């Protein structure tokens, strides 16, 4: 698995192969071979192996309790929207995230001790209680996910830089398909991502986060207060997403999930979640390429629900298969909404408009634009 591959000694590949044939050769030839071993390609190999080692660091669980102030920027309707988040991490599973307003006051707080998660929405005077986040709520195991990440993205170590007073390694992730820069990460010695930049199709930064300060959590703050502030009404909510395969989802919902025949390069079907809304049960089909998520929601027309896109900026109409769909651009990527075969669909993901349209068109019963196999169609389901 990928962890085993990453743990191989960080010897340049050419050095490893040349070391076998060195014995018994004259000293001059040996020197020549040694010189060849460390010539041009070696730094590239080095950078990749170093990047793999840094990446491996990011998966190790936090060992140190810390507090960080983070600046999050997302581009929305052509303008940057800024959020400040104060994070406290208390290993093994405790965390607190506070979203601050422009005056530095907390407007939203999510706090968890690993058993219960509270979200206090102070502006709406409401507290929601539920199960905490769980990264294991999916079918792909971490090794498979990392395998996908590695298969679809070229990873390179590019430099060492300082972020929030800490030395970090700068990693670049590029799409293997077209070498497009997708993400840059600044990872510290403890494996924390202290800075991240995500790039859009045009090469500009679509979102970024940066840790502005990071300190060890003072002893006095190492116990999280899970009590609900006075004056908030409490509502229960199960945050934990479900994770089912297609058969389980069909049994649970009474509907057979429809998978697209075509997916963007590198994406695979991962699992299905059921999102309850009012009396309807919305199927949430989840896809990933190891780095980004693609969500396809489907529900029957009979549920009599119409997706509202108000407040999502400019909504444009475009052809999808035999009908038309509506497309909006949001910080999470793009949202495409359309109807076909008695169902309504919503696709959310970071893909290009054309890729979104092709995914939608390749759904069963909506296949006028379905891509021919020679165009690179592949089965979405594993």
């Amino acid at each position, binding site marked *: 698995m990928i962890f085993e591959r990453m743990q191989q000694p960080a010897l340049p590949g050419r050095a490893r192969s040349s070391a076998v044939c060195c014995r018994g050769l004259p000293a001059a030839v040996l020197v020549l071979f040694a010189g060849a071993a460390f010539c041009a390609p070696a730094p590239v190999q080095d950078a990749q192996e170093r990047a793999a080692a840094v990446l491996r660091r990011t998966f190790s669980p936090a060992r140190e309790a810390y507090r960080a102030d983070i600046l999050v920027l997302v581009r929305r309707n052509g303008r940057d929207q800024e*959020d400040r988040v104060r994070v406290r991490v208390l290993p093994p599973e405790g965390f607190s995230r506070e*979203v601050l307003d422009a005056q530095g006051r907390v407007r939203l707080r999510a706090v968890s001790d690993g058993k219960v998660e509270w979200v206090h929405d102070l502006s709406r005077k409401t507290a929601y209680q539920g199960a905490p986040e769980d990264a294991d709520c999916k079918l792909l195991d971490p090794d498979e996910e990392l395998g996908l990440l590695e298969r679809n993205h070229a990873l390179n170590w590019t430099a060492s830089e300082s972020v929030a007073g800490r030395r970090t390694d700068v990693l670049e992730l590029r799409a293997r398909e077209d070498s497009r820069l997708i993400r840059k990460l600044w990872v510290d010695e403890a494996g924390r991502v202290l800075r991240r930049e995500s790039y859009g199709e045009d090469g500009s930064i679509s979102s970024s986060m940066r840790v502005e300060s990071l300190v060890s959590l003072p002893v006095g703050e190492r116990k999280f207060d899970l009590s609900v502030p006075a004056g908030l009404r409490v509502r229960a909510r199960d945050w934990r997403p479900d994770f089912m395969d297609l058969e389980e989802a069909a049994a649970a919902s009474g509907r057979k999930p429809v998978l697209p025949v075509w997916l963007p390069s590198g994406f695979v079907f991962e699992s299905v979640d059921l999102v309850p809304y009012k009396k309807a049960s919305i199927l949430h089909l989840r896809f990933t390429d190891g780095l980004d998520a693609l969500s396809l929601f489907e529900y029957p027309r009979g549920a009599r629900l*119409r997706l*509202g896109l108000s407040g999502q900026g400019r909504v444009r109409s475009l052809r999808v298969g035999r009908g*038309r769909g509506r497309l909006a651009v949001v910080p999470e990527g793009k949202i495409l909404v359309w109807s076909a075969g008695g169902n309504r669909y919503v696709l959310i993901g970071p893909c290009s408009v054309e890729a979104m349209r092709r995914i939608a068109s390749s759904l069963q019963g909506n296949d006028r634009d379905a891509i021919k196999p020679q165009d690179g169609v592949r089965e979405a389901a594993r």
Partner: protein
Amino acid sequence: MNAGCIEREALSAYADAESGPEERAGIESHLAACARCRARLEMITALKKAVAAAVVPAPAMPADLREKLLRMRMRSMGLWPRLLGFLREFSPRRRVMALSFSAAGLVLALWIFREDLPGIGSGEEELPVSVLLAAHGRYASTLPLSGAEGPASRVQDLLAEASDDL
């Protein structure tokens, strides 16, 4: 002019055939006896003919000026009177065609954008996009390399916002 001769205004009125019957009879009996007044009448008549021949007919209003004035008038009116005024410019047949095309265009636009219109005749409820964005964000946050800030702060917002509708 001798005493008893006719006044110039009266001669001019006589030349224009504007005198009353009695005045006309008096003028004619005087003209028969007075060569000087006959000469004056001839001069007045000749002058009137010359003036009439010299008068230039009034020019027609330029077409663009007329349109400009119409447009100014339209602008000062409300939408409906303007629309009606515009339709009045058409022949009845063209009027029916214009109205038919407009109605067809309206129906087509309603059909194309029916999904954007709040539940026209469908009685449908709105599903907030925030509910789906929150579910998407929750899944995205489980992927490798999701940030220390957790699900994007905005997603947390949406999560809370969406929960009110659940």
